[in-house]
């Protein structure tokens, strides 16, 4: 008697379970706790199946290898966690060279830790997608990105890290600043003893302008920069800080990455983004052997939704998504203008030119005393 009862109860619950599953497949999802997440997905990630959410939740976590844009990343992660409480986001933050070395060493050793990787050098991500270390996954918002801002199915650009000429408004008059709207303006003798440059050896965005200047304007341009005896600063962050503090008046190869946090905090700085624009994309991709592939896909999806993108971009840099309204307060400033054209950038060419650019810089700008 007792046995029979139990069996009956079991059958009933099995039936019930089957019914719930059927509902889930139909309407999308079983677990009521996931309803909110699912609703968001349906709105912002059209076409992404509910199973991705379920699988992602089963995996329960996602590991992010990201760069040193802590505040942008933190803000985005925070919102992601609210949207998808079932996936815990873990972060490893480091400067580009170190992040790359660690990730690659792990891959070589077949120890897969990273789910999501970011990089300020799209060329690096291109190369990695070619060697098969990235997972092919086309995001639902793929169409929102131009060809230059993605390698479809591999990486998508979180931002453009724009390079410009920055000045301290306490030390440079508006009249003087007009000269700084064009790259050619930096070689004006009025900047003698007032300006600084970031050493191209700092890499990444610090290097690119030198590469472009040499290509575009020739060694003569570097010679003229050298004549101004600019202060050489080792890295972008301390250079931006020096500008904000008023220790230098002008920074020739400033990066928005360094400037934005300072402007947000009320520093008396401004910058121009002359034509042709210089600004590598910062891309994000999924690792080929991501230990949490579904959670990774979910995060990748979220990062490029209207919401996820906006949060990151607001603190991280100029948007690379087509027709995306720039969330940054600076975008509202009258003086702020994103360049219309960009200097062509070819990773292979930039790499092969590294040594010549460095040599020219050492000879013409950082002249040995």
């Amino acid at each position: 008697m007792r046995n029979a009862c139990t069996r009956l109860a079991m059958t009933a619950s099995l039936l019930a379970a089957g019914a719930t599953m059927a509902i889930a497949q139909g309407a999308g999802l079983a677990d009521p706790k996931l309803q909110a997440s699912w609703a968001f997905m349906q709105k912002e990630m059209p076409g992404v199946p509910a199973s991705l959410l379920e699988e992602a939740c089963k995996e329960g976590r996602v590991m992010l290898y990201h760069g040193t844009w802590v505040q942008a990343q933190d803000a985005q992660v925070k919102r992601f966690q609210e949207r998808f409480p079932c996936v815990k986001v873990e972060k490893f933050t480091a400067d580009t060279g170190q992040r790359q070395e660690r990730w690659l060493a792990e891959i070589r050793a077949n120890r897969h830790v990273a789910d999501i990787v970011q990089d300020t050098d799209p060329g690096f991500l291109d190369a990695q997608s070619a060697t098969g270390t990235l997972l092919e996954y086309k995001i639902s918002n793929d169409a929102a990105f131009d060809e230059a801002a993605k390698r479809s199915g591999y990486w998508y650009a979180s931002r453009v890290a724009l390079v410009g000429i920055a000045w301290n408004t306490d030390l440079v008059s508006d009249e003087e600043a007009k000269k700084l709207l064009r790259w050619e303006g930096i070689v004006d003798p009025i900047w003698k003893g007032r300006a600084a440059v970031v050493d191209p050896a700092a890499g990444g965005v610090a290097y690119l302008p030198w590469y472009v200047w040499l290509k575009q304007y020739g060694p003569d341009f570097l010679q003229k920069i050298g004549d101004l005896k600019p202060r050489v600063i080792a890295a972008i962050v301390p250079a931006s800080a020096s500008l904000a503090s008023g220790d230098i008046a002008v920074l020739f190869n400033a990066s928005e990455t360094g400037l934005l946090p300072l402007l947000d905090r009320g520093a008396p700085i401004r910058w121009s983004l002359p034509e042709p624009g210089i600004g590598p994309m910062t891309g994000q991709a999924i690792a080929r052997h991501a230990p949490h592939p579904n959670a990774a896909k979910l995060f990748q999806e979220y990062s490029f939704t209207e919401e996820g993108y906006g949060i990151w971009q607001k603190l991280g840099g100029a948007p690379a998504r087509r027709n995306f309204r720039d969330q940054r307060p600076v975008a509202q400033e009258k003086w702020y203008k994103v360049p219309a054209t960009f200097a062509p950038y070819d990773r292979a060419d930039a790499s092969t030119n590294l040594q010549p650019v460095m040599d020219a810089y050492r000879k013409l700008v950082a002249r040995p005393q």
Partner: protein
Amino acid sequence: MTQTRAQHGSFDGGRIGGFLFLALLLALIAAPILYVIYGSLRTGAPGAADAGFTLENWRTAYLSSAYLKALWNTMALSAIVSVLALMLGGALAWLVARTDMPGRTQMALLLLVPLLISNLITTLAWIALAAPNAGFLNAWFRSMTGVRTLFDIYSFQGIVLVHVLHYASFAYLAIFAALRSIDASLEEASYMLGVGPLGTGLRMTLPLIAPTLATSFLIIFVLVAENFSVPTLLGSPVGFHTLPSLIYQNMAVTPARPTLAAAAGTLLLWVALIGAAIQRRITRNASRYITVTGKGARLRSAKLGGWRIPALCFVALYLFLAVILPYFALMLGSFMSFLTANIRPSVFTLENYATILVGDNLAPVFNSLILSAGGGLGLTILYLGMSFVLAQASKTFARLVEYVTILPSAIPALILGVGLIWTFVGWSVPIYGTMAILLIAYFLRNLGYGLRQANNAFSQIARELTEAARMNGASRLRALWDISIPLIRPAILSLWTMLFIFIFMEVSATILLYTPDTRTMPTVLWNYMSSGSQPHAFAIAVAQASLVFIVLYLADRKFGLLRKTLER
């Protein structure tokens, strides 16, 4: 006349265990270094599919003028800093430990404070203070006198200043411990001969602490040679580059050149070996410096007489430059939206602290405390154990080990971190991605210092003291525990203190090896720094220094880190 053979003693299990332990540690030391050397001979990172052998990296590092110039700069900077830091630290230690200078008990702990902010943060603080145009100090001085710049931190002197102020404190602690354990009868003999305090200090005390001085010299030399943040930040404007700043650049450029960085790293190994050879010459006859003997010893304070106040002023001046000024800049900066000399109410904010004092940042605090207190103690025991086992090995072997152990400290932490990844990433043993790899990194980073300090500590005790214990029925380990350890307590505490501080501050290797679960305070600080927010970094630095100081203060209260040894 029966002859029985004793059953015990023919197989010394303890000794064999000891040597196995040593062999394991040596493998641990050798692996990342060999990986770095191997990597330096490759076109790509070890394990990379398309990499092959090349001498190109070595050619660049060993033959190009840029690297040779940097090598020269590195050596010159290290030598100057080490000598100055030793002189300054030695004077401070002597004044606090062995004279009747007023306020010395209070000063004892304060003199450690310069070590509680990393070199990087000290440098940023000094930039805030003495940047030529907008440094607080220069701006203030300009408003007072109209002179444009009082002191320009972007200079060779600036680099030396930042380093010397930092490492004088390091030298102070090491010498302090050595001075506390000197047999005063040796000094008394000198006083009896009518030699004054200064003469006695120079002629008697100095030779007695020679091993400590030599070790401190070596360690400061190597650490300065290895440091990249100070010369990178302060030297770039004047075109002054050291090897580590070039190495850093090799890792920063795109594409990064880790193998060239590794080759340049090997250059520093030679620098370290030369330093170790010098140190070895000075300490060769360690028994000449035995300062704890079985004969009674009394400590004696030199009477400074009329020099008491000038001495206090001297210590105060050091504290002003090494503590008050940089901490003033740090504190001020940590309450500002951004650093500026143009001080007005609107730049002040509490946001920095509000941001860092979040639950998310509690784990790093906890990790840092565990790693530096627990790990520091563990490493202290490990170094003492190594030294103890080595004392039973053959002299040639012990010397070889001593040379080898300086190497991991000499490789820039960044490269050491890369070497550790290359070594451990493929292991299935849970080391990579756990706290274990951080502890291994800290073990290696501090090995040269820790092992030598342990050696020095042991060599201060006359061998008869432990032998007497054995003649009284104590085993070797028991004699270590009952006799040696209590007798070298000041040295052990100073070693633990130093490791606690060093580990708490370590970032260059940690930044490569940490995981979300093993974040430390300095990694959080570093990431804020790199993300462009110096004020946040300053706020963390202030929190970090306060935390470390409180821990040290409590430890001093409880275990008598410095105070009790002072009252001995």
